[in-house]
Each structure stands twice: as C-alpha cells, then as structure tokens.
C-alpha cells in the first residue's frame, strides 16, 4: 500500500499540481509580458478584463478556443497537427525533473514534509538538455508542413539557430558540472549550499552565455529570427490559427520558464537564499517555493526587459555570435573553471 502510494499516487498528484502551476504561470507570463512591456513603452496594456486586467489570459484563451481552425489546403495535415504538440509537451515534461525545493510541508499544510520535485534522476541535466532540444522538431515540422514559404524559411532559421546555440549552452553548463561534480539537479543545488555560494559567482561567464543561449533557444528578442514578424510575417507559425496557435504560444512561454528554471537551479541556487551559509537565514523562515519562483519571475522580467529594448539580430550575425564569440568564450570559461577547481583541490 505504501509502496503504491509512494511510487504511483504521490508522483501523480505532484505531477498534476506542478502541471497546473506551470500552465497557470504560462498563462500569466503572457499577461505579465503584455503589461510590463506596455509600461516600458509608456502605455497601459490590457487593463479592462477584470481588475487591472487580471482575467485577460482567460479571455484570450476563450477567444482562441472559439477561433476557426484553418489548415492550408496543401498542408500535411497530420504533421500540421503534431507540430504544436511537439513544441509544448517536451517543455512541460522537463518540469518533472526540476526541483522546486528540497523538502517542505507546503507552509504547514502537510504533517510530514515531502520532496518538492517529482523525480530526481542522476542524469537530470542531460535529460533537460535533451528534452529542450526536442522542441525544435515542433518548429521545423510546423514550418515545413504548412507549405508556406515564410513558414519554411522560419523553420530553417530556427533549426540552424537552435542547433548552433545548443553547443555553447551545453559547454557553459559543463563548467557547472565541474563545480558540482554531479548531473542531478538536486545535487547541484546541494553543492551550492555546501559551497555557501551560488554558482553564478564563480561561473559568471557561464551564466551569461547560458542566458544568451537560452534567449536564442526560446526564439525571443533580440534573437527571435524564426518568427521575425517584420520579415517573415510570423515565421513558422504563420499558417496556424486558433488553439494550435495558442499551443505554439504556450510552448514559447513554457520554454522561457524552462530556461529560467534551469538557470535558477544551476546558477542561482534553486530554492536557496543568497549566500545560504550566512547565519541570518537560520532565524528566518525557510521559504523554498518563494525563492524559487521569485527567481523565475525575475528571469521572466529580464526576458521582457530585453524585448522592450533591443532590435533584432540578423541571421548571419546571429551565427557569428554563436560560433565566433560564445563558443570560444564558453570553452575558455570551461578551462578557467577547471583550473580554479584544480587549484582549490
């Protein structure tokens, strides 16, 4: 009985709870984006649906549900349907691996503390990278199956972009592996706790590279070439409408949250407060979820902030940046971190 409970029912409940939290966060990420972007642009943004517009995501969802679902006449129907699923699902799967906290009783709701993650695999980081790169199939299939030139060019761009930015990203994450000595996300955070320092301080260059690559992988400004609206109309999702379009949209935001979560766990100490070895934290209540989601929201704000400020790179310049700057820099950083680690030993 307890076996069944521990390995089947509890993870299922956790999965449902985490999934609904993430989908809620995705929906409200769109709202936050629209509001914050509007404030940065000296306008108000959506503020009419509910007080200060907080019902806007629901209104958007209802509207998109009732929209006509158009499929171009020469499209590959099955792949056209599959693409939006392929982009959202891998992003959501990753949250099965992300630790939101070590152990907690959810603000005193439970008697016994439970682990605040679904599962901790000892190769979690590899899995995360693997699932994150699965998303590109959604983009390529979506662009190719809609049988439109703009979609096709967008898909080609996204393929090239995601593949080339994964290389420096993974190398920058490798420097963290040197520091932590483990691929398990929980162990990485614990290593930061033992060290008493977030990994952002020794690995600032790695953090920077990871963020740049993460923005590029999620196709956000200044690297939003696959969907550059002024050149390619809407890129790979030009021919999508209704709920399928919403899936692409949610996939983009889910991916943003994935990148933010991984950055939080790997570089910003996950659920840990800043400088976790300080004695002051022992007197304050332990709030793992607040720390975690606070950091994720800060990342989302950074995403929006960058979008509000920068123009878009050109395709060849994007490749230049990846291969000529970020890749050498990340390798150099790897060497430096290795030397530092060796020196400490």
């Amino acid at each position, binding site marked *: 009985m307890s076996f069944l409970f521990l390995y089947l029912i509890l993870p299922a409940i956790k999965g449902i709870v985490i999934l609904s939290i993430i989908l809620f966060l995705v929906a409200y990420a769109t709202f936050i984006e629209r509001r914050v*972007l509007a404030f*940065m*642009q*000296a*306008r108000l943004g959506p503020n009419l649906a509910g007080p200060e517009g907080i019902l806007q995501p629901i209104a958007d969802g209802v509207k998109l549900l009732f929209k006509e679902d158009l499929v171009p006449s020469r499209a590959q129907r099955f792949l056209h349907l599959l693409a939006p699923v392929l982009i959202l699902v891998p992003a959501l799967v990753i949250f099965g691996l992300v630790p939101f906290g070590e152990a907690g009783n959810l603000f005193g709701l439970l008697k016994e503390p439970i682990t605040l993650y679904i599962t901790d695999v000892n190769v979690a980081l590899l899995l995360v990278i693997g699932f994150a790169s699965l998303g590109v199939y959604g983009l390529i299939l979506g662009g190719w199956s809609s049988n439109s*030139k*703009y979609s096709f*060019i967008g898909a080609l*761009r996204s393929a090239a972009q995601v593949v080339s930015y994964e290389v420096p990203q993974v190398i920058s994450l490798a420097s963290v592996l040197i520091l932590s000595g483990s691929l398990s996300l929980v162990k990485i955070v614990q290593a930061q706790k033992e060290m008493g320092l977030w990994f952002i301080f020794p690995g600032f260059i790695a953090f920077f590279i990871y963020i740049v690559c993460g923005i590029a992988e999620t196709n956000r*400004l*200044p690297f*939003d*070439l696959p969907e*550059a*609206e*002024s*050149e*390619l*109309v809407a890129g790979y999702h030009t021919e999508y409408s209704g709920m399928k379009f919403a899936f692409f949209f949610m996939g983009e935001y889910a991916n943003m949250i994935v990148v933010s979560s991984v950055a939080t766990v790997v570089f910003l100490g996950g659920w840990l407060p800043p400088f976790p070895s300080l004695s002051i934290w022992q007197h304050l209540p332990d709030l793992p979820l607040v720390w975690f989601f606070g950091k994720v929201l800060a990342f989302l704000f950074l995403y929006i902030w960058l*979008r*509000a*400020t*920068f*123009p*878009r*790179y*050109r*395709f*060849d*310049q994007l490749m230049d940046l990846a291969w000529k700057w970020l890749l050498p820099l990340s390798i150099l950083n790897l060497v430096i971190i290795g030397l530092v680690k060796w020196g400490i030993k």
Partner: protein
Amino acid sequence: MLEIRELELNMGPQHPATHGVLRLILKVDGERIIDAKPVIGYLHRGTEKLFENQTYPMNVPHTDRLDYIAAATNNHAYCGAVEKLLGVEVPRKAKFIRVILDELQRISSHLVWLATHALDIGAMTPFFYTFRERELILDLFEEYCGARLTLNCMTIGGVPEDLPEGWIEKLQNFIQIFEEKIWDYENLLTDNRIWKKRTIGVGVISPEDAINYGLTGPPLRGSGIKYDVRRALPYEVYPELDFEIPIGKNGDTYDRYLVRMEEMRQSIRILKQCIEKMPKEGEIQAKGLKFIKPKPAEVYFSVEAPKGELGFHIISDGSPKPYRVRVRPPSFINLQALPHMVKGHLIADVVAVIGTLDIVLGEIDR
C-alpha cells in the same frame, strides 16, 4: 531533369514591413537576395487625372492624400506651384507660418519613419516613444487648422487661418519637450551594437549611383551630397534662416539614420528662429485670388519634403482648371534604388532598406 532554381518569395502587398501595399518579388538563394522587383500600383487612385477636372483651389485637399504622413509639405508644394503660375507673392507672415508647419511636419514624418524603421529592425519600443511626441505635433496641427492628418492647411496665396492664441507658447513647450525626449530614441538606438550591426554597411549606395538614380532627400544626403531644396532652390523665408544640412559619409542605412536624426534637430533650430523672427501682425492671404484663372503657362515648383524633393509640374491652358498636373514624388524615385541596394544582402536587410528609404505608397501610386 533536376534543376536548381531560386526560391521566388512574394513579399507583400500584405506584409507587415512593406509600409502599405508595396509588393516585392524577391528571388532568393537561401536567405540571400539575387534579385528584387518592386511592383507598385495597388494604391492607385488617379489623383493626377483628378487634378485636371477640378479648379485650382479644389485640388489642395487632394494633395493631402499623396504623402499622407506629411500633408503640409504636399499642400505647400502644390500651392507654391500655383502661386508661381500666377506670379503671386505670399505675405510675409504666411511665409513664416508655412515654414513652421513644414518643419513640424518634417519632424512628425521623421518620427513615423524612425518608428517604423526601428520596428522593422525589431526594436519595438521606439515606436511608442516617437508616437508619443508625434501626438503633440498632431495636437498642434489640430489646433491650427482643425485636422490632424489630412491637414489642408494652406491655400493658394497664403494660409487659411491665423495662428490661434497661445499657439506659439504651445509650440515652444513642444520644442522644449522634444529636445529632451529625442535622447530617448538616441539612447535606445544610436550606440546600440545590434542596431549598428543591422544598419552599418546595409543598403550602401555610392554618391554617383545616388545621383544617377535621381535620389533626393536623406537617401541622397546620406551618401554625402549636400543637396537640399531649401538651400539649392530657396523658397519662402529659408534664405533668412540659419540651419545646417547634415550629410552622411558612407551612404549606408546607419548614415541615413544619423542624417534624419540631425535633420530633426535642425528643424527644431528653424522653428526657434521662426518664432523669433515671425511678424506679430500682418496679412496671411494674398489679395485678388477670389477667382483663380492663370494665363497659359508651364511651371515647376518643388519643396524639400521630409522624404526628398517634392515637385509639382503644372500646365495651364488658361481655364480655371489645370491642363495637366504632374507630381514628382520623392518616394517613387527613391524606390527605384531599392533593387540595387538590396542585391546580395539577406532577407532581413530588405525590410531595413525599405525602412531607410522611407517610402509612402500613397505618394508612389498617386
């Protein structure tokens, strides 16, 4: 047989970055442009023919609809041409009012250019900042002539109305605000490395080519040629005013950006001088123009519109209606250089070049 063909990409007439209804047939090899062919005519309204069927004063509102984001300069060019045909001298105060309206219109047109150009290159925020300031200019226009976009703010022989009370103070207030806010755009764009990467070396046109294509306005001055109708063929009170003509060096998109930014500052300088020098009292409308019936003649008159040299060629046959009116729209002629400028660049550069040429399709198709 398998053969290798270039991808033919149809950009527009419904496309977010073609500034209206321009259609470009692009031949691309991957992302690289091999050939570009602009197709125009989607906004053709037969304005030139319309001019022939109406009397001279009735044509003024139609000129608003040519370059619809710079209506004042269009009015000015047409009215100036008819005045030249009639040999009428515009009263001094009306001249100053015209210059003020022109320069305000130049700023507002350049603001729209900056907004759309930056939006095409991916920077979304300057759009809202520039439109915020443009709104103030439109408010000034509304207060002066009652319309915000299609102004109809000049008549043959002068201007329809005197400046309302307190208008000059509002103009001074705008000048003060604008001089401060122009730094918002500069901070976001001028030094930004992404902006520089996207614009430097893109759409280069050499001075020789620029002259051969007949470019005018900022696209010509960006290539380093100091040609400005306000100085070359002075009209109204421009000879009395002190201003510089900014020129670029390399003839690329970034230089044209700098030229236009500097032009906005020079326009502010002109506005300040106009406020100082404008006579407080005076006629605003030349006498004896109740019924306009010029002698048979042919004139060409041009002004420096925000986009380049805007000219009207009018042939009169002695009747109250013109025999033929031919518009020399700057956008139409600047657009010719587009295929030359984008060849060998990437798709993303096409939108940058369309933006930097600052075309308005209402003027191209007429």
